[in-house]
């Protein structure tokens, strides 16, 4: 048997699932303020479940830690890019209070690359060591962003080794693990990822202590797939958007719909999002968290505070409609009765818990390649698909059952060649212990 848990700001839901994901029971308990792990154990305790093979959790703690500037680690921000990366400094445009909560120093060192192999310059290892020594005692985590690292992460890894040699074991976030081309957004995501290390390591360790070793524990990430606790501890930023993503997935599972607009009616507000192909529709043009543009994949949501006028909600639902063909509206969440129209599936009040319990473990990979010969595309795309598959396995997917959700190629504008952006997403059921 397996269970899903959705930790909300007010309530925590849990669902117990049996053979073929049949829903056996659901419960709702009051969340323990500021303690998602206690909320999870309380909900599972109420569920009164026998030993579970698998528990998956939708968390909202990461986003609120950033919003409230609470429990964030001080981050040393290192950019590998040499003089060409000087014009816009790290953390440019961050709100003053978030900057104060997070920044333990910044530096730009020589190194980094380009689209072509010959464009790479060597990493200034001495400058990396000097920077690390300079932030010793102040930095609780390090964020490393290398120019063009989504094409080749080697220098980020090398810099991480130097930093660890200088500062000992501390969380080091690498931008290549988090985002695609677009230095500023990827760097911002990496800094947030490092800042959330304390929160994530704590949650991962306590969840593991409470539930492992009998149970395989996973956490929903912003793209709607799951990751293991080890993966959460390494990449905390990926859990941003976890709660809403679980809810959207659950609405799809409960109705059998792959495409729908979903209203999650909470105690204080309604969140309206959309499902596309069974996964959350992501915010276009990148997400903003804490006022900062970040290159992370999180669900696009419109929030309508309660109480609301029917017209307000109708407008939000209409704005999330993806096409001229009207998609069905699915209404879920503890307050679903406040919205009369739409589909109200059974167990909809625990949609987030059910979404977490039934989601696959995911991974993705993206890179830009030069393909003068168009016939080389299938081989290049196959390599990217393999990386996405490996990424899913690293996040905890069962290697025997990983499948490809999406594989796409988009030519880059204004370049002959052509240069093509290749992207693939993969997912599979959690590997059993």
């Amino acid at each position, binding site marked *: 048997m397996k269970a899903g848990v959705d930790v909300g700001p007010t309530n925590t839901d849990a669902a117990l699932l049996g053979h073929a994901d049949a829903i056996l029971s659901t419960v709702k308990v009051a969340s323990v303020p500021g303690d998602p792990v206690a909320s999870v154990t309380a909900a599972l305790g109420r569920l009164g479940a026998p030993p579970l093979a698998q528990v998956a959790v939708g968390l909202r703690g990461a986003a609120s830690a950033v919003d409230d500037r609470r429990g964030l680690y001080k981050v040393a921000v290192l950019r590998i*890019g040499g*003089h*060409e*990366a*000087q*014009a*816009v400094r790290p953390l*440019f*445009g961050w709100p003053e209070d978030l900057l104060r909560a997070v920044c333990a120093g910044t530096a730009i060192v020589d190194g980094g690359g*380009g*689209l*072509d192999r010959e*464009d790479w310059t060597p990493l200034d290892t001495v400058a990396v060591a000097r920077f690390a020594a300079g932030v010793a005692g102040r930095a609780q985590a390090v964020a490393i962003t290398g*120019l*063009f690292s989504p094409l080749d992460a080697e220098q980020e890894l090398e810099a991480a080794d130097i930093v660890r040699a200088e500062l000992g074991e501390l969380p080091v976030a690498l931008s290549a693990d988090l985002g695609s*081309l*677009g*230095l*500023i957004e990827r760097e911002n995501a990496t800094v947030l990822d490092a800042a959330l290390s304390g929160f994530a390591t704590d949650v991962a360790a306590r969840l593991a202590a409470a539930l492992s070793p009998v149970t395989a524990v996973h956490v929903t990430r912003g793209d709607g797939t799951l990751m293991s606790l080890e993966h959460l501890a390494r990449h905390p930023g990926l859990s941003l958007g976890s709660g809403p993503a679980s809810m959207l997935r659950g609405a799809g599972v409960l109705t059998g719909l792959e495409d729908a607009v979903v209203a999650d009616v909470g105690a204080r507000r309604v969140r309206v999002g*959309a499902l*596309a192909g069974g996964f959350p*529709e992501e915010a*276009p*043009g990148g997400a903003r968290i804490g006022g900062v543009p970040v290159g992370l994949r999180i669900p696009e949501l419109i929030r309508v505070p309660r109480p609301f006028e029917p017209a307000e909600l109708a407008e939000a639902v209409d*704005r999330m*409609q*993806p*096409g*001229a*063909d009207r998609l069905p509206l699915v209404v879920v969440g503890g307050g679903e009765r406040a919205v009369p129209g739409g589909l109200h599936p059974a167990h909809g009040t625990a949609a987030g818990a059910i979404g977490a319990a039934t989601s696959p473990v995911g991974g993705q990979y993206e890179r*830009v390649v030069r393909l003068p010969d*168009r016939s080389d595309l299938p081989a290049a795309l196959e390599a990217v698909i393999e990386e996405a598959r490996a990424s899913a396995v690293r996040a905890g997917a069962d290697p025997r059952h990983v499948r490809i959700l999406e594989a796409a190629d*988009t*030519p*880059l*504008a*204004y*370049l*002959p*060649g*052509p*240069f*093509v*952006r290749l992207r693939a997403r993969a997912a599979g059921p959690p590997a059993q212990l």
Partner: protein
Amino acid sequence: MRKIGIDQLDDMARGAGILGTGGGGDPYVGKLLAREAIRRHGPVTLYDIAEVPADATVVPISGMGAPTVLLEKLPAGTEELAALRALEAVLGRKATHIVPIEVGGVNSMIPIAAAAQAGLPLVDGDAMGRAFPEAQMVLPTLIGVSNTPMALADDKGNTLVVDAISNHWAERLGRAACVQMGCQVSCADTVLRGDQLADGLVPATLTLAEDLGRAVRLARAAHADPVAAATSVLGGVKLFAGKVVDVERRTTGGFARGKALLAGAGSFELSFQNEHLLARRDGGIVATTPDLICVLDTDTGEPVTTEAMRYGLRVTVIGVPCDPRWTSPAGLELAGPRYFGYDCDYRPLPLA
């Protein structure tokens, strides 16, 4: 004459994005560069074309290459000056003014950063009045001004000066060099004398971009219709409002070609390469390059780039008349629908 300070940049960049007609690169990074340059060197003086002396040496500064690369490899701010200095060395005289070659997209902002760094004034105008993908697609080509010597500078410190037999050849050589130089270079080319500006530039387009961006911002703040505000500032005509229901992309001859299908009251098809170039409503052509086909997010009035076109976006398409010199036979030969490989002739926009 007036000054451009940091406070003008947000509006100007927003407007320039709309004038990019789906291409030209997101002005965002350019805006950060211009802001940083103004912070260090002070505001930039902006002159009307009529205020520029007849013997002035006016140098367009721009970036060439892939906006995607620009988002990763932020210019250091030194490349523009390196290109300018390389060009001046060949010309044997100093630039007196800087001007944008292209007001649409990121190339509206890069000359502001360059002018601040060089300590030179900027001219209010540009050589396209929109965004186009190739170096010869500028009004100076129509009056016989050569776009060479064309100086290119990369982030590593390399510079290259191209001398070519035609403006098309300069584009061809410059583009190939750009790929070798890391797919993003700074350019100084198409030098104009002060007395050539009236014929070689679309006037007051930086001011237009600022007015446009401000109108969209104010409309949003007042919960009014930002798309209507933009249409009014541009003297454009609303062609369609609907949702993107299909996007198809393919690559032909090294250039990305795509189509987007919109559904609303009827059907609408956008054909794009780097910019939106052709629009059909219920099968009939309603807008073609060189007129501006601007695709805006219906709710926010923000421009939607061709790379960002995706299923589900709610957009409004507006058509804006191009500078009339573009619809001359020579202008259409440079930038009309047939140059871009479409089997149709230019068709003026429907009346508003």
